[in-house]
Every structure is written in structure tokens, then in C-alpha cells.
């Protein structure tokens, strides 16, 4: 069942296979003082492992899909952080919200237009 919250053992195992890449990436990022977080380094490592054929996509596929499906859950704790910013609870918060919304609309429209324009010029849209 796609909407099920709890993963099956296989899905959990597949998601667990991501952990060593995350750990290795975090270790590299810390030891080498990289300006990039460990998770991004870990993504690069996994990409390399997939390209070299050391890891097969099918080994991780269902675990990754489960994580993607419930991605919003993992953003919730950061969102609750708004309680520590009471200055945003009043009018300033509403003005900030309007700024975020207007800026987001501008970003989406300009990005969509730029990609679409180039895609049509190259004749593949």
C-alpha cells in the first residue's frame, strides 16, 4: 500500500543502505574541512558508486522512494523553529511572508521562462 507510513523490512533495509554513504560523506566533509555538508558529499559518493557499478540502482530504489514520499515529515522540526522567532508572530511576520511569496513567484516564473526559452530554441520542447 503506497500510503503506508511504516516501511516493509525490505524498504527499511534499502533505505539503510544510504547510511554508510551519508556517514562516509560526513566524515570526509569534517576531516577535509570541506565547505559542503556531509550529505551532499555522500550523494556524490553514491553517484560515483552507481556510475562505477559498485552499487546497483535496484538495491536502493524502494528505500529512496519511501524517503522521498515522506520527505515533508523531516522538515517539520525545522518549521517548528518559528516559535523561537516571536518577532515574526505579528505584522513583521506577515510582511516577511508577503516578501517570501512574491520572491518565490518571481523565481519560479523566471526559471520556468528561461528553461522553456532555451528548450524551444533548441527545438526539443
Amino acid at each position: 500500500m503506497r500510503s503506508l507510513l511504516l516501511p516493509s523490512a525490505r524498504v527499511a533495509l534499502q533505505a539503510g543502505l544510504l547510511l554508510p554513504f551519508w556517514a562516509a560523506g560526513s566524515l570526509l566533509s569534517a576531516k577535509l574541512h570541506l565547505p559542503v555538508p556531509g550529505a551532499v558529499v555522500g550523494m556524490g559518493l553514491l553517484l560515483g558508486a552507481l556510475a562505477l557499478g559498485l552499487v546497483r540502482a535496484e538495491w536502493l530504489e524502494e528505500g529512496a522512494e519511501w524517503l522521498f514520499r515522506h520527505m515533508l515529515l523531516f522538515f517539520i522540526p525545522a518549521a517548528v523553529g518559528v516559535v523561537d522567532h516571536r518577532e515574526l508572530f505579528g505584522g513583521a511576520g506577515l510582511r516577511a511572508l508577503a516578501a517570501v511569496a512574491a520572491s518565490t513567484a518571481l523565481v519560479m516564473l523566471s526559471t520556468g521562462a528561461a528553461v522553456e526559452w532555451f528548450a524551444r530554441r533548441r527545438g526539443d520542447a
Partner: protein
Amino acid sequence: MSAAGWAAATVALYAAARALYRRSGAVFLSPLLLAPAALVALLLGFHVPYARYMQGGEPLGRVLGPVTVAFALPLYRQRSLLRRHAVELGAGLLVGSLVAVSSSLALAWAAGLDGVAARSMAPRSVTTPLAMLAASTLGGVPSLTAVFVIVTGLVGIVLGRLIVERLPLRSPLARGALLGLGAHGAGTAEAMQLGALEGAVAGLVMICAGLLLLAGAPALRMVLGAV
């Protein structure tokens, strides 16, 4: 309530909001709005500090690490398509990133926010960990940036759906790119609903935009001057 209790409450509220949202489709029932709102009400009502909540919440948030690693998979699957369309995607990445930072700063200023709040808003369109890193380079407050990033995701789900439905975009690349650049992970989750290519493009653009911002942050700080 114990740390495990707060973690369980977060998951339970997420599950409840998700069920309501899937049944109704109403945006204000989005798990990213309803669950944090309920948790904020609980913390305020019972005078629980955020730090106490985070003893349970932080481990959940850390799962975004493996989620980020997992983006290697759609990128790998769609690698030949992504390589073929590097020009279009690169253009979107540059245009979108410039618009994101400049319009965030300008609109924060227009909204009457102070300099530190504006600097905290500048990196809001990229994924949380990268945005927080960029915020500290720019002289913003990382925890305030995290809030702006989340609000961006929330607003972005609504606006993204509207724009994708109304704009006459023929290219799935354009749809994926605008969602990934405009609303980071939340937009990418939305793009994955549209299709595998849209999802991969959104994931790629999201990560590249974050890395580009990190690379550009020191120069941007010089432009903005000292706090």
C-alpha cells in the same frame, strides 16, 4: 513529555495531516503547515522551550541527510537526459539563483525588515542545510533562515502548482526546474508527483542551486558589506 514523546507526536501529527490532506486536497491542511502549527500551539500552550522539543525533533530532521544522499538515484537514472539538456538547465539555474537572492534582499528591504533579517532571507530558496551555511557566511541568523526556507517550501507548493497549471510550458524540464529552484525539497516532492523526469530535474537543480549559493556567498558578503 519525553524526547521520544515529541518525536512520536511529530510523526502522528504528520500522519494525520497527510491523511486529511490527501482526502481534501486543501493546501492549508498540508502536513508542512498543519503539523508544525499544531506543534507550535502545543509548545506555547504548555510552555515547552523549542530546545526541549528538538531533543525529539532533531533526530527526525537529521533524516534529511539520507534523503539528500538518495537524490543520487534519480540523478543517475536520468543522467543522459540531464547531460543532453545541460544548457537549458544551466540557464535556468543562473537566472533563478540571481532572481532568488536579489529579489529576496530587495523585497525584505521593501517589507521593512532589518539588515540581519534581510541577510537571513537571502538564501531562503535553497535546501535547509545549505541555506543555513550560506546564512552564516552572509551575516544572517541561520535559525531564522531555516524558518524562511520552510515558509518558502510551503508557499512554493501552492504557487508552484498554480504556475505549472497556468503557464503554457511545453518542456517538462521547465516545470521541474522552476519547482526545484523555487521551492527546494518541497518543490522537488511536488515535481516527483508530475513525473520521473520532472522530479530528477528538480532534485538536480535544487542541489546545484545550493552549491552555487555556497560558492557565491563570500562574494555576496563583500557586496553587502559588514553587518
